């Protein structure tokens, strides 16, 4: 096992541990910290696969914005866990785990049956400069559409989360 494989196994373990923590820990802030660990693990994997730009954007968007958004949601809802959420294997929960295991086994089975390709030693061109150039030329229209989508989604989020009482006071 060479150094790259060792690093990949370690980072995979970090990502899987983070994902398992985020999906099983019942304490909300701890589950969220586990999610941040998962985001960092995936970002490190992006760096390892030489997609540096996507790795940086992953850290900025997920750890910097999405995780903070989740913290705000927890604070604003003061979400308390129901008794049902704490470690009990109710039938619906067993069914959910079973369904996810079937989907996971199906995906893993498909992967196992495909012919394996070792990743080339030299990464294809596709880091920051080519991505920026493509966004301004061939992918300009999708880029603009996704900007409009993001703006609309953020305005919509503010409108949805707006307090009804405040609306009435303004009117």
């Amino acid at each position, binding site marked *: 096992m*060479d150094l790259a494989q060792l690093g*990949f196994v370690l980072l*995979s373990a970090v*990502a899987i541990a983070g*994902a*398992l923590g*985020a*999906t*099983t820990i019942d304490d*909300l802030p701890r589950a969220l910290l586990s999610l941040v660990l*998962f*985001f960092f693990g995936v970002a490190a*994997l*992006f760096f390892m*696969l030489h*997609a540096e730009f*996507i790795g940086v*954007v*992953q850290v900025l*968007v*997920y750890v910097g*914005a999405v995780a903070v*958004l*989740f913290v*705000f949601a927890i604070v*604003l*809802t003061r979400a308390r866990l*129901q008794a*049902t959420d704490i470690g009990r294997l109710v039938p*619906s*929960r067993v069914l*959910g*785990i079973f369904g996810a*295991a079937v*989907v*996971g086994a199906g*995906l*893993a089975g498909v992967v*196992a049956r*495909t012919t*394996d*390709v*070792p*990743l*080339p*030693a030299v990464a*294809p*061109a596709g880091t920051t400069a*080519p*991505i920026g150039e*493509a*966004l301004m030329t061939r992918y300009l229209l999708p880029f603009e559409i*996704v900007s409009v*989508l*993001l703006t609309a*989604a*953020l305005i*919509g*989020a503010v409108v*949805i989360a707006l307090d009804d009482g405040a609306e009435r006071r303004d009117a």
Partner: protein
Amino acid sequence: MISLNAVLMLSAVLFAVGLAGALTRKNAILVLVSIEIMMNAANLNFIAFWRAGLLELTGPLFALFTLVIAGAESAVGLALVIAIYRHFKSVDVANIQTLSG
């Protein structure tokens, strides 16, 4: 060297973990957390296929657009959670059973 299948297998495991979380969690915020995990697993595949030379620049670009859409999705999702909490005083998805109530 790392092989493509190793990355794809990791992505399948992460997706299954996220799906299990989305199906078993009772707290709406934690359901959204699980959906984010599934989106990240899918993104990992785009980067892996690009790295293997099977996708040209489309790989990282699609991953980039997915990141933006995941950000928009979590913003709207959490706004909905806050609005639902204000109405039902609960974020437990098992308690939210009425429409237009």
